[in-house]
């Protein structure tokens, strides 16, 4: 089955982020396809490469990035949500003349059309967070 995953929750603030990660990993382990993971609302913070959680806590952002690179996942961050929250890739940082970028290489920035496309393409869309 082809899944699309939508994550609304920020890491550490809500269980949504961790549950979304665990669900995504589980469906991949079971042999299903993940068409795309779309990060929206505060979910865009899952793409941060600047997080440095205490060593005895899960590194949620790094876990997403590792899962993405291991399975060649299409991890997409909504551009409008990301920009208003200070989540930038090098291109956007340069465009808006900001001093740093914050999105890990495993993620890409794109528009809401990717959410709609995922909804239309996948057999199941599973949303984490409200």
């Amino acid at each position, binding site marked *: 089955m082809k899944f699309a995953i*939508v994550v*609304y929750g920020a890491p550490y603030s809500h269980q949504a982020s961790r549950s979304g990660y665990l669900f995504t990993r589980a469906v991949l382990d079971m042999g299903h396809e993940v068409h795309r993971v779309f990060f*929206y*609302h*505060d979910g865009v913070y899952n793409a941060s490469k600047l997080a440095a959680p205490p060593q005895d806590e899960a590194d949620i952002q790094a876990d997403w990035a590792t899962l993405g690179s291991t399975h060649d996942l299409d991890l997409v961050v*909504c551009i*409008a*949500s990301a920009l208003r929250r200070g989540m930038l890739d090098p291109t956007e940082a340069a465009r808006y003349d900001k001093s740093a970028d914050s999105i890990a290489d495993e993620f890409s920035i794109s*528009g*809401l*059309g990717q*959410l*709609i*496309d995922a*909804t*239309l393409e996948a057999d199941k*869309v599973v*949303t984490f967070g*409200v």
Partner: protein
Amino acid sequence: MSQILFVMSRSPGSINAQEGFDALLMGSAFATCSVVFLGTGLFQLVDGQDAEPLGGKNFSHGFGALNDYGVSEIYCNKRELDRADLAIQDLSVPVRLLDDDEINALFNDHQMILSF
């Protein structure tokens, strides 16, 4: 029957409401969409709101343009409207009122549902 049902269930001051509306507009460019306002999401539709003094954006003015985007089906729950002591005239756009069974049928009839 629309392809995608959008469910708005958050209060008008929430970013979920604003970004949900953005998603609805984007969705309407790709598919036929309908939208149902449930719970505190109903208050997004109350006419005459001004979010700017609170540092918000008056995105709800865009509801009036939904028809131009092809979103002609806007639903609310009649019981929730009554409980909020609102009338259909208090809302900024024309809506179709559904009872609980009709809301359930709406969810059952759609294969694709996005909640905000």
